[in-house]
């Protein structure tokens, strides 16, 4: 494969775009968060006096001008310091100063990243392994009964309420058959049910796109030409059509990975999966704003990374992009 400077320039540009987007999104999060209640009050709890709250506000820098606070926030963003969690109350978040890593939100959130990556990765790999063959099988025989069945099933997959399906999975496969643990984290068996619950939608979407993009490609002149050269159908589909159909499929896989990253918020909560999603729900429910900022930061970072990977995949799949 020829990869030249144009390719790197392209990736560099996307990377720069991603960084700018990240800063914009996090800035919006910062300003939005300043609208919802008093962090000092949340740290101190309901019983604290006004004086104590004001005292803490000063200590936390909340009495400074907004521009100064925003500047600090940006500096923190650049240095990976997104503030300290409220969850432990006043006792140490102020007293312990900057040394207490256990209180910094970014490390707390980072700690949950692997679990989410495992779940999202397993979901997408499983989805692709199921959906691609299904989609291609259906595309090979358009409007046949199996194609129609696959079509309806894949639509059904994207139409179901995920968490309802997740609960059914628990009842059937954990309680009834006892094949998998109900919930939790640690072994391969623990991944199965949450990944299954999350994969329904990606399977449906990828199947549909694989089928339709392959059919679209198969209608193009170069396919007709290849057939006219006596190339066997199987080879025409596998070598010629599939590579070009791969671009929309990769786009969809990227989109669905992003959807899974959103979907983990509910599914992780149900399955007690110690990922970013469950942490986001926890942090939201107690309004632990710095922690919310950290989880949103990581979620957005994941999404931007996925987008970047999709861009790189494009460049490999589409020679026109590669040569610039």
């Amino acid at each position, binding site marked *: 494969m020829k990869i030249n400077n144009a390719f790197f320039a392209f990736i560099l540009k996307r990377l720069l775009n991603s960084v700018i987007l990240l800063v914009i999104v996090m800035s919006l999060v910062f300003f939005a968060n300043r609208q919802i209640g008093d962090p000092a009050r949340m740290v101190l709890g309901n019983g604290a006096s006004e004086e*104590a709250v004001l005292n803490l506000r000063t200590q936390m820098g909340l009495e400074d001008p907004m521009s100064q606070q925003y500047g600090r926030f940006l500096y923190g963003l650049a240095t990976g310091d997104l503030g300290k969690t409220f969850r432990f*109350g006043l006792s*140490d978040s102020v*007293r312990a100063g900057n040394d207490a890593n256990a209180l910094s939100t970014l490390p707390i959130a980072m700690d949950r990243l692997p679990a989410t990556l495992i779940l999202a990765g397993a979901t997408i790999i499983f989805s692709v392994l199921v959906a691609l063959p299904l989609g291609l099988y259906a595309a090979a025989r358009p409007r046949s009964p199996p194609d129609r069945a696959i079509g309806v099933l894949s639509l059904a997959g994207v139409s179901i309420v995920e968490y309802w399906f997740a609960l059914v999975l628990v009842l059937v496969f954990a309680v009834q058959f006892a094949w998998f643990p109900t919930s*939790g984290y640690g072994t391969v068996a623990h991944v199965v049910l949450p990944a299954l619950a999350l994969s329904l939608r990606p399977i449906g979407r990828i199947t549909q796109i694989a089928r339709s993009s392959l059919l679209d490609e198969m209608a193009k002149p170069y396919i007709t030409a290849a057939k006219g050269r006596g190339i066997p159908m199987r080879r025409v589909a596998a070598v010629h059509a599939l590579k070009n159909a791969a671009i929309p499929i990769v786009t969809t896989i990227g989109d669905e990975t992003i959807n899974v990253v959103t979907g983990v918020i509910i599914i992780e909560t149900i399955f007690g999966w110690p990922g970013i999603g469950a942490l986001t729900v926890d942090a939201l*429910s107690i309004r632990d704003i710095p922690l919310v900022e950290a989880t949103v930061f990581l979620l957005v970072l994941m999404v931007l990374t996925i987008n970047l990977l999709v861009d790189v995949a494009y460049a490999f799949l589409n020679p026109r992009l590669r040569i610039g």
Partner: protein
Amino acid sequence: MRNTVSTKSLALALAGVLAAPAHAAGGGELVIVGNQEPQSMQAQVAHKEVNGIGLRNVIEQLTRLDPETNEVLPMLAVSWEQIEPTVWHFDLRDGVKFHDGTDLDAEAAAVSINWLWSPENSYPVRDMMGPQITAEVVDEDTVAVITDGIDPLLPRRMYLGGITSARQILEEPEDHSVNPIGTGPYVFDEWKQGQYWTSTANPDWWGNSADDTYGEIFYDSVRVVWRPEALVRSAMVESGEAQVAMFLTREECDRFGAASGIDCMVKGSDTFLQFRLDYQGAHPLLQDQKFRKAIFTGINWEGIRQNLMSLSEPLAGQMLPSVATGFADGIEQYAYDPQGARALVDELKAAGNEIPTLEVTTRLGSTPRNGEMIEAIGAMLGAVGIPTRIAVEEPGIFNPRAVAKPTPDRSYAWLHVQANPLMDYALTFGAHYTCAGNVSVFCDPDFEARANAAAELTGDARHEALEALVVEGHERHIVAPVGLLQRAYGVVEGFEWDFGVDHRIVAVNMRETK
């Protein structure tokens, strides 16, 4: 569950090599599934079981309550004495060591007590405090606990305050939030955030050899996990992943009772559900007894209790059950009288009053089906001509509103749970019936003075004084009690567990017979 094997083998090795004398163990790992992760492992968290499930296996207090009689018993303190009206001396148990190897002496106890109740730390446990508590060293084995005002309930209150390592508090305060170092039968092992926390049997626990111990170590280790979904919690017991699942519903409990291999345990608690309605300072109509009566009798409390609050015991028109100090005989729950309520509302309207829209909220997940309950309340009030707006709010929104005092444009009610581990009305009054009370929207200086006076009394005098106030509170429609919560646990068959109304998850009181 990756620790199961290693922990087990470690415990076996300990048992074999050291041959710890009175350390029974051998019960393997106890897995408890609760509904939420502790927000921290601070000593103060242990005051309420739901805030830090299982933490009382690691952290102990000066006193404890008898599960049967609710009477105050020795724990880390072997005896206590009221030296002066505001000074109590606690005699500490000999030879008790914290899990970090430091001794529990008067010095350590004083540091821990002062840390826990200090205004600077502002821990929520202070909601359970009467007058301000401070501690001083008397001699090596005696700690003095001093209260700003007279507090006859102090020994009972001490049951709420966990005692943890003074060395940690002084040297590594930030560690206090994540690494509890107590004196209990289990040594804190690891808190894997988002997943579980674990502890291992403590071979050096004082209770292994003491005569007045409160249990026996059966399990080698304890693992606490949490699942917000009720269905998943009960599924974990059914599939054998946990021995104890907390907070089942009545229907699940019935199903568990009927199924083989699993059981359901139900018991009344020290927590009651109450309906608090803005009073002083709120919309003028809310200070009108007619309007309050219309609201309190326009709601079918018994219907809600029986059908929505399925695991509950009736409350006799007041907040605490009959065992409580100050319980008033002869009061009955506000009777459902939609016609009467409607008539009152019509009367108020005829007098030219505009009925305000009542905002009824509850906290997300504070008790099962609270969302349905406020829907029912809203619909019932609507039916008697009182408009409502209802909302289930997450703690972040609910909590600050709960402590804000009413303003004239406000007409607000909440449905919320409240625990009274002391089983004494003084605590209820302090929180709900005084101007300064944390969540109080009622403010009558005269009433407050009488309540404060009653709180300093003891014996029958105390009971009678509090009882009179209870009756008055009922007549003045201050707060509507809904019911006393029962809590249900899904457990493996043959599970034995002694616990009191405080529902402490204490492993030394648990064992499996099968």
